[in-house]
């Protein structure tokens, strides 16, 4: 009788310890799915998906409220990655979503800028420096090309410049065969 009780107690303690350990060791902060989706999104924070940023869109996808084909900066590859992550079918871009554009950065025409700070307030990643009545400028390295600063500018001094191919950012192209016998070469393009 006593042995049985002791054994039961020992098992209870061991299992309890294991459960407790697992609870600490494998604890997840927040919703891991949202973070995984957010990691795929390009973080332009452009709002073209009709959500106020990448995280809210990720949250909406995770909750099943939004489609995976609403992110133009992520391109079709982004959709494919989301489809793979969520185990759903690939969907081409929908009718109401803008088509993907070439990657670009904003540029402020500094002679025209009146220093109104409206663009600074609009920039989701704090990539514009300047102060009231002072000329503003874009920190090109931080700019995500979201275009959110273009509309608020009262004097239309912000242009979106497509990033040109230079030696520093050039990359090798997909090799083209003399004769394309392998299906993957054509399909993957």
């Amino acid at each position, binding site marked *: 009788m006593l042995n049985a009780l002791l054994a039961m107690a020992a098992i209870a303690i061991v299992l309890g310890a294991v459960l407790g350990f697992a609870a600490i060791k494998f604890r997840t902060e927040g919703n891991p799915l949202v973070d995984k989706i*957010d990691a795929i*999104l*390009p*973080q*332009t*924070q452009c709002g073209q998906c009709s959500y106020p*940023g*990448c*995280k809210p869109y990720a949250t909406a996808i995770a909750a099943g409220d939004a489609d995976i084909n609403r992110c133009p900066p992520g391109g079709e590859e982004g959709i494919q990655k989301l489809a793979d992550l969520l185990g759903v079918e690939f969907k081409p871009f929908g009718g109401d979503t803008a088509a993907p554009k070439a990657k670009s950065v904003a540029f402020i025409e500094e002679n025209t800028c009146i220093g109104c700070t409206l663009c600074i307030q609009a920039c*989701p*990643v*704090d*990539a514009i420096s300047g102060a009231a009545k002072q000329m503003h400028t874009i920190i090109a390295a*931080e700019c*995500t090309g979201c275009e959110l600063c273009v509309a608020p500018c009262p004097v239309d001094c912000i242009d979106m410049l497509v990033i040109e*191919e*230079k*030696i*520093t*950012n*050039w*990359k*090798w*192209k*997909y*090799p083209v*065969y*003399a*004769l394309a*016998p*392998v299906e*993957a*070469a054509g399909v*993957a393009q």
Partner: protein
Amino acid sequence: MSKLYHFHGGIHPPSNKTQSTQRPIACAPLPSKLVIPFHQHVGNRAKPIVQIGDHVLKGQKIGQSEGQLSSAVHASTSGTVTAIDMQLVAHHSGLPDLCVTLIPDGKDEWITHNGVDYQQTSHSELRHLLRKAGVVGLGGAVFPSDLKTDARHQKITTLILNGAECEPYISCDDMLMRERALEIIRGAEIMRFMLDAAEVLIGIEDNKPEAIRAMQLAAASSGDKMKVIVVPTIYPGGGAKQLMRVLTGIEVAAGVRSTEKGVQCFNVATALTIYRAIQFGEPLLSRIVTVAGNVRQAQNFEALIGTPIDELVALCEALADTNGYIMGGPMMGMPLPGVHVPVVKATNCIIASSKKLFPPPPPAMPCIRCTRCVDVCPAELQPQDLFWFAQSKEFGRAQEFNLFDCIECGACSYVCPSHIPLVQFYRFAKSEIRVREHDKQLADQARERHEYREHRIEREKLERAERLAAKEKSAQPAVIESLTPQQQVELATLEASRAHIRELAKSEVEHTVESPGN
């Protein structure tokens, strides 16, 4: 004779070297103009420090190194700067890059320069001198030599001088060793001093008997710490990693520095340049270039950096059916985007190509997994699997299969019976992976900045609310009692005048608001 090790794979393409070793190295005449790119090395582009119209002297610095990983650029002769603009350069992309155009004045007038006695100079000063002289590796990688001679963090036991020169057609190192062996050995002594290395091993492939003899003779004067070692001829036995393996048995994987294993490797031409930079204070202004291929008489030239290749090739008379130029060898070289492209620090060889010499590859067939590529791969990779992953853009899998250990030697493409442009696929996959990693970094940065901004806006809102609350609190006359009677009177008059002003302002506003209606 010390024990030699063996590396896996390798091929024996026809070497075609003897055509260019019949005549001694010639000094190329001063060209009509020099085009000197600011980016001839691994790392950041040098910053121009001259202006259009400036007259510069031979050896004058025209490009300042920028950042840690960068190198200086010098005027190869005296003359006038006529342009600083984008010009076609030797690059796989065929895109232009920033260059100085220099019209020589024909005087070849040196800037004052003097050397130092290296044994009386500190290591850091020597490294500084190399950096100032724009010395980079001349074997093809063009890595700044001042960084490679830094032995502060690791103990270097073996210094390897690479005189293997395994690529077909190229003979510039061979001729250099034949004719200037002593200067190479002097350079090696300086490097050994800087690295504090115990021994120097000079690896030369056995198809260069004259160079081996000359180097052995020169090395004999340096005692037994300097050894010339004859290695078997096999491509890519002149790859730094492969030569290290053959001479020391040490294997260095991708992403690992050879210095961590106590080995450092330099090209023989770099040794000579280091010697001239330290002993005479001469910056890197010229190099030996093999001109070969579809030409009447192949030969090696000492050419100024910036010499347009068409002027150089003209000295050898390209044959009529020449259809382009290749910089480097036929295995790893790059096709040049134009005939005016300048000789740069990395230019070891210019090959005139023709349809007969390098016929276009036959149509590619599917991979039949015959594993001939596996048999020849010096990095012991599975080229057919890497090809499969690169082709289907499974970049993660490609990385798992050690894509970045590929040295792009081209041995796999050379033997492929299906004639698949394998190396092209690896280059594509590597560059795609690099871009993705860069984009990922940018995205993470943007996410962080965005989250910080949200956080800041939230905090500012909170702070404003707190300030407002605090203000309201201070507006209450809680402290009036503690003031002296006199102060209280002052406060009261102040309040009264404020009230008056408020009254006035209000009436004015009312007035202005009403006025349009009237």
